[in-house]
C-alpha cells in the first residue's frame, strides 16, 4: 500500500449563506483547494464528494456529477466522480475512499470535497432531514429526535460517571472560545456557562447551546501519492493512519450508550496503522454534534479514561494551551456543521495546524493531529491521523 499525503486545502465560510447555492459553495472550496495544492485540473484522477442529503435539502441528487461539471472536470478529462453518504461522517468516509484509491495504486491525485446546504429549507424540515440519520422505523416514529437520543446518552453518562451539567456546558464554552478565533466559523462569539444553562431546553438535560447548529458550507482537500507530493507543495501532510467502523443504527441496540464502539474500533484501527498511541496525539478535531458526544469522543479515542471526559472539560485540558487542544476550529458547535462538509472541514483544520497556518488558534509544536467523525448517533465512525512530512 502506498503512502498518501494531503497537498491542498480549501474551505468556505460556514454559516447561513443565503446568497449562495450548494453549487456555489462546492465550487468555491474546490477551487481554493486546487489553487492551494499547485496542481492543475488535468492532474486530477478522481473526485469524491461527501454529502448527506442534497436531495432533501436542495432537491438535487447526482451531486458528484454536478460538482465535477462546475469545477471543469466533466467535459475535458471526464474524471470519475463519486458521492458518498454516511450522514455526519459522509465527508470523512469520502476522505477514506479517496485515500484508498491512491493507496491502492489506482489513482495518483484525487480531490475530496464535502458540502451541505441546509438553510434553503425551514429549520423544522432541516431538523427532520438531519434526523434521517437515526432509525426512522424504530426510533423516529415513536417520537425520538436526534437531540433526545443525545440527551439519553448524556443522562446515562451523568448517572454512571457523575458528569455534571456544568461540565457539559464547558465543552460548548471552549468550542465557542476557539471558534471566535476562526474567521471561517459560523459563531464567532465567546459564551459562558450561564449562556448554555439559560438557553432553551431542547431535550432534557440538553439545551440549545449543547447542540450544533444548522449550517451551509463546503470544504475540499487534495490528496496525492506521498512520493509525488513534494512536486506540488513544500508542506505535505501525511495520512499516517485511518480507520472506519460501524455499529447499530439505533442507539437502543448498543452494548453501552455511554461509549461509541464505532469510535473505539475506528480509533484502534487508525492507531495501529499509524503505529502510535493516544498520548502521541498533539491535538484533535472531534465530533461534537452535542456536548455529550465530544465528552464521549475524547474518552473513546483514549485521550482520557472512561468517565473522566467531563472533568477534562472542566479543567480545560481540551482548550487551547491545555493538555490536548480539541476542536481548535470551534468544532461543530461554533465553526458550524454542514453535515456532509464536516469530515473534510476537520481535515482542513488539522492540515492548517500541522502547516503552522492556524494563526491565533495555532497549537504550539503541533506534530500529530487526529480527526474523528460520526454518522448518526454512532452507527459510523472514522478516525484519521495526520502528520507533517517535514
Amino acid at each position, binding site marked *: 500500500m502506498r503512502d498518501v499525503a494531503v497537498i491542498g486545502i480549501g474551505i468556505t465560510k460556514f454559516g447561513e449563506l443565503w446568497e449562495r447555492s450548494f453549487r456555489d459553495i462546492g465550487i468555491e472550496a474546490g477551487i481554493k483547494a486546487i489553487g492551494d495544492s499547485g496542481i492543475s485540473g488535468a492532474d486530477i484522477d478522481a473526485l469524491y464528494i461527501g454529502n448527506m442529503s442534497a436531495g432533501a435539502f436542495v432537491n438535487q441528487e447526482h451531486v458528484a456529477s454536478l460538482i465535477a461539471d462546475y469545477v471543469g472536470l466533466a467535459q475535458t478529462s471526464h474524471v470519475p466522480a463519486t458521492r458518498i453518504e454516511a450522514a455526519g461522517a459522509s465527508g470523512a468516509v469520502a476522505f477514506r475512499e479517496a485515500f484508498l484509491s491512491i493507496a491502492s495504486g489506482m489513482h495518483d491525485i484525487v480531490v475530496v470535497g464535502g458540502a451541505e446546504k441546509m438553510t434553503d429549507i425551514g429549520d423544522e424540515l432541516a431538523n427532520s432531514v438531519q434526523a434521517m440519520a437515526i432509525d426512522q422505523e424504530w426510533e423516529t*416514529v*415513536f*417520537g425520538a*429526535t436526534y437531540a433526545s*437520543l443525545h440527551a439519553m446518552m448524556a443522562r446515562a453518562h451523568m448517572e454512571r460517571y457523575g458528569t455534571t451539567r456544568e461540565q457539559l456546558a464547558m465543552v460548548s464554552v471552549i468550542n465557542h472560545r476557539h471558534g471566535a478565533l476562526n474567521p471561517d466559523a459560523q459563531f464567532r462569539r465567546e459564551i459562558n456557562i450561564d449562556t448554555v444553562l439559560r438557553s432553551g*431546553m431542547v*431535550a432534557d438535560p440538553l439545551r440549545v447551546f449543547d447542540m450544533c447548529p444548522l449550517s451551509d458550507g463546503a470544504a475540499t482537500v487534495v490528496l496525492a501519492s506521498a512520493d509525488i507530493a513534494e512536486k506540488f507543495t513544500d508542506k505535505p501532510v501525511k495520512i499516517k493512519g485511518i480507520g472506519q467502523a460501524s455499529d447499530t443504527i*439505533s442507539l*437502543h441496540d448498543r452494548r453501552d450508550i455511554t461509549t461509541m464502539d464505532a469510535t473505539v474500533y475506528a480509533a484502534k484501527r487508525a492507531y495501529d496503522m499509524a503505529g502510535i498511541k493516544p498520548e502521541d496525539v498533539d491535538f484533535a478535531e472531534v465530533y461534537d454534534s452535542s456536548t455529550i458526544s465530544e465528552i464521549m469522543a475524547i474518552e473513546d479515542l483514549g485521550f482520557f479514561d472512561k468517565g473522566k471526559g467531563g472533568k477534562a472539560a472542566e479543567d480545560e485540558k481540551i482548550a487551547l494551551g491545555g493538555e490536548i487542544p480539541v476542536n481548535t476550529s470551534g468544532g461543530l458547535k461554533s465553526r458550524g456543521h454542514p453535515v456532509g462538509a464536516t469530515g473534510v472541514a476537520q481535515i482542513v483544520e488539522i492540515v492548517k495546524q500541522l502547516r503552522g497556518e492556524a494563526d491565533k488558534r495555532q497549537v504550539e509544536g503541533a506534530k500529530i493531529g487526529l480527526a474523528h467523525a460520526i454518522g448518526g448517533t454512532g452507527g459510523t465512525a472514522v478516525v484519521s491521523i495526520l502528520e507533517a512530512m517535514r
Partner: protein
Amino acid sequence: MNMPRFWREISGRYNLIGSRCGNCGEYFFPKRDICPKCHRKSMGKMESVKFSGTGKVISYSIVHDPHPAYSDMRPYVMAIIELDEGPKLTSQIVDCEPEDVHTGMRVKATFRKLAEDGKEGVIFYGYKFKPE
C-alpha cells in the same frame, strides 16, 4: 410516513413481535433475519416470538422540541427500555408525570396512538410504556 410503510411493521409495533435465534437462543426486537452473533449458523433458524412487554428504563429524556407531528404531546418522555427477555427499544413513557420517571423504573407496554399524518391523514398506533 406513508401508510404501506407503517402497515408493513404492524406486527412489531402493535404486538411486540420480534425474533429469537434458534441457534444461540438470543432474543431480538424488531425482527431480524440473521443473528449478529451466529451469522451463517442462524440462517433459516430465526423464530418469531411475542415479547411480554415488561421491562425497565435504561435512560430517558424529556422532549421539549419535538418533530411537529408530536408537538401536541410536549413535553413528553422518550426512553430506552430493556425488555425482560433482553432486547432494548425506544418508546415514550406515559401515564405518569415526567418528573417521576427514573432510570431502572419498571414499565410495561400499552397500545396507544403515536401520531397523525396531518389533519385528514392516517392515525398511527403502536406501543408506549407506562409504570408497571
